[in-house]
């Protein structure tokens, strides 16, 4: 199972920061999250959402759904950023 971490407002929406979620692709992970929390599931699919696997950006929102996941991959979802 992938370890999934949420950043920023997604954490508040979910009520958790990190948990193990089953799924062999990013799309499967998104669907598992959406089944439990539709609002969060929709946010994770938004074209502005950063999708990060093992500390590398792999795409945005549901555009990254096809990305396959290995056992123990670190997956992170982040809303639009604001540094500085």
């Amino acid at each position, binding site marked *: 199972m992938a370890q999934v971490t949420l*950043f920023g407002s997604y954490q508040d929406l979910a009520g958790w920061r990190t948990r193990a979620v089953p799924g062999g692709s990013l799309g499967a992970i998104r669907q598992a999250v959406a089944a439990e929390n539709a609002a969060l599931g929709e946010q994770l699919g938004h074209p502005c959402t950063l999708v990060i696997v093992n500390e*590398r950006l792999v795409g945005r929102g549901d555009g990254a759904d096809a990305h396959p996941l290995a056992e123990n991959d670190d997956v992170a979802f982040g809303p639009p950023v*604001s*540094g*500085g």
Partner: protein
Amino acid sequence: MIRLADAAIDPGALLAEFCAGRTDAGAVVSFTGLTRGRTDGAAVTRLTLDAYPGFTEAVMAEIEAEARARFAVEDVLAVHRWGSLDIGEPIIFVAAAAEHRRAAFEAVDYLMDQFKTRAPFWKREDGPDGARWIEARPDDHQAIERWATAQ
């Protein structure tokens, strides 16, 4: 050089360190971002920055490399704070050293525009009216467009 700091950063000490021993660079420009007690009219009592250590530095290092390639700078430093900040505390310190001042100004300006819209930090402001998550402002998105056409 990029650093992510989980404790208070000291802009004075960073500038002193960055200037020390330079005999070829005539110009050092710095930017310091401070936590404001008010944004868009709403009082703020605390700022919390979330980051993703590893990923966050990697994106910042990419932006640093762009700036070094684009401007005639000798050196660049960016230190970004994360965690829980009091009002008035520094959030970011960016500096560039160059032979002539134009390149140093432009490099720091570029770095700040890019960090504001691309550096992976998530900011929450707490105030008497509750908490709110902050995204890059519309003028930050406009600012970044300047670099698409310039030089």
